[in-house]
């Protein structure tokens, strides 16, 4: 296949009369990690919601060479486009094992009998989840919840995994773990679109980056260049705060 895995062109999302994302275009190459950084309220989560189909949007979304802008969320999931949302959206009163199993729902429903085999890989990657398989998801700690959300998403065998603020509220040690998993996933061929507040970490692991500000894409380029860009350094890496 030629061309990037995901191509978003001139995407606009409005809440009522307020436009939260304005004319944003981006692309994710197969097998790469692309990050979208920007301050709170810049429209990053909205952008992911629009790509996933949970929010109505105008503009083009092409995935794997196909126009998916009219597909339902479920069709996109079945096509391997999977989102781990900022709020995790776990099934709190269900067991960890059930959460994991339901991650494979789209595959199982398509009649893919091997879908549950991924479970072993997920438990191998997150041994903590295997230990807590019989516990209710609502009793997990913040880091475990993020792992479960990731594990559940991996059960769908994503081709493009979208992560919304995976480091949110996690201790540095766990953030490090999560980011190393993200890098490991890339090595297995999964493409990743990563939205992060933690700009430094995000730029370190990613290949290409976009900077979103009040709904507009103001800057983009290879992550290395962005990290070196004085404006990005000032606003998002907190160096302006240093006298």
């Amino acid at each position: 296949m030629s061309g990037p895995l995901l191509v978003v062109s001139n995407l606009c999302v409005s809440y009522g009369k307020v436009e939260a994302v304005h004319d944003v275009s981006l692309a994710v190459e197969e097998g790469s990690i692309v990050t979208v950084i920007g301050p709170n309220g810049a429209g990053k989560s909205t952008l992911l919601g629009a790509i996933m189909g949970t929010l109505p949007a105008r503009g083009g979304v092409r995935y794997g060479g196909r126009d998916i802008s009219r597909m339902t969320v479920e069709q996109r999931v079945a096509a391997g486009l999977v989102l781990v949302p900022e709020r995790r959206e776990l099934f709190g009163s269900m067991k960890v094992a059930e959460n994991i199993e339901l991650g494979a729902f789209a595959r199982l429903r398509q009649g893919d009998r091997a879908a549950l085999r991924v479970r072993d890989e997920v438990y191998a990657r997150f041994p903590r989840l295997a230990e807590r398989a019989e516990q209710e998801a609502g009793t997990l700690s913040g880091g475990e919840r993020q792992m479960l959300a990731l594990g559940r998403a991996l059960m769908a065998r994503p081709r493009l995994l979208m992560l919304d603020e995976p480091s949110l509220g996690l201790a540095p040690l766990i953030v490090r773990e999560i980011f190393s998993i993200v890098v490991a996933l890339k090595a297995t061929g999964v493409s990743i679109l990563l939205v992060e507040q933690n700009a430094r970490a995000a730029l370190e692991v990613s290949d290409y980056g976009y900077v979103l500000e009040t709904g507009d894409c103001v800057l983009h380029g290879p992550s290395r260049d962005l990290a070196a860009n004085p404006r990005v350094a000032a606003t998002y890496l907190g160096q302006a705060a240093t006298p």
Partner: protein
Amino acid sequence: MGLQRIALAILLLLLAAVPVVAPAFWVTLANYIGLYSMVALGLVLLTGVAGQTSFGQAAFVGIGAYTSAYLTTRYALSPWITLVIGVAFTCAVALFLGFITLRMRGHYLPLATIAWGISLYYVFGNLEALGGHTGMSGIPALSLGGIELKDERRYFYLIWLLTLAALWTTRNLLDSRPGRAVRALKGGLDMVEAFGVDAARLKIVVFVYAAVLACISGWLYAHLQRFVNPTPFGINQGIEYLFMAVVGGAGSVWGAVVGATLITLMKEWLQDLLPVLLGRQGNFELVVFGLLMVLILQFARDGVWPWIARFVPRAAVKPVPDAEPLPARPRAVGNGPLLEVKQARKQFGGLVAVDNLSFDIHAGEIVGLIGPNGAGKSTTFALISGALPLTSGEVRLRGESIGSRPPYEIARRGLGRTFQHVKLIGAMSVLDNVAIGAYLRGSSGVVRAALKLDRAEEARVRAEAARAVARVGLSGHMHDAAGSLALGQQRIVEIARALASDPALLLLDEPAAGLRYLEKQELARLLRALRDEGMTILLVEHDMDFVMGLTDRLVVMDFGEKLAEGKPADIQRNPAVREAYLGGVA
């Protein structure tokens, strides 16, 4: 005289002419439309505006009718006395039903009213004293100033006088201090509570108001028919009333009249047509009403009225005249800190969001609460404002413990706040939104508002709100719908609303998010000016530049705990903060 008034005058003249010129059949229909409108009006307020509903309004109509029927025939009481007794009885029942259902969030009121509507129907039908299913006859006619209102054409004027009065009071109510809060209940419940509105109480009041209108309609009905039986007070009729409100347009008082007219006429027409069409007898008009209702809710959820309203001239926006300021809170506080957070802890299931957090805020300071995303800042805000109860620990405002109190009680003690996710009522004007902030500074209740006795205070509230809007520099948008503003401006409107509450402590949740550079600078200027006037501000913010330049002191959180506290310059040099906040990874 505005176009709108001329239209209204013509409408009233036409209405007054009905009994003079129309044939008896149409006068009867018009009488029923008036009676139904009154009940539907209550549902407009309850369902369309407040977002609650009742399927049991017919039962309240029944209470009004049966109370008067029984007391006038059995004890020969004057119908005017039985009206008072009926209303009192209705209030008691509605208060009770409201109390047991409306304090809970959810849909218990409609379910309870279905059960109540059915039960009352069986009570009417089975009590011998009330004539059982055959009903009661011989109810005396009303007389007013020596004139007996036996004739339908005379009765028409009484019905429509009361219906129009109900329309007038409901409109007044919607445009008042309690009315603004009622209009914000649907979609802004947390917000109104944060400005001192006891939402559960307000919902109960609205329910009682709707029940009283239904009761008056029933009383009129009993003395019009001079006979009652249980049929018109059953659950079917209760649901038909709801149809009227929804079909007409539950968002506007005129929707009630339009809906009552449409449904009454359609019913009349269908009852003649359907048996001919279908070749059998039965309540088939209900099928049509049911389908109509489903279609209206699927395709035109606001009913018929918005469509008619396009042809009605609009009243011009009136400027807000200046008025005496509302009484302000004394600025002076004791020696102690204004806000004390002591060992606050909040746990959700296995997740500890805030742990052992303590800090103080002194009067006249701007304090920033910072930390990486998910560090527990928003939860801390929710604990201070009462949106979440503490798991353990204590929060004191001006020396008084406020931990785990409901938000409306905390607001009363001087806390004004903005929300991270803007909570404005999009369809209301900026001015009305800001006036909600001044809720606690007024005192007009439902009765004063309904009778328009609140105008002096209302003028002061509006002037105060206008001043708050001007203060934040949005005078140009005062009369625009809040939902039409850009996100950044909406955040500023939220600050104006908090200012209108004359707070001792202002809580700002990410005020600069979504603002452009110049807007941020303006916001910083405004907040500094407020501090110089003695306001105390606690803000959560991510924009470091903004926070460092503005605040007097910072509290840094990480993983729910306090990581550091101090002057911005010291915080910037703190290695632990740099590590945590700036995210050194890998």
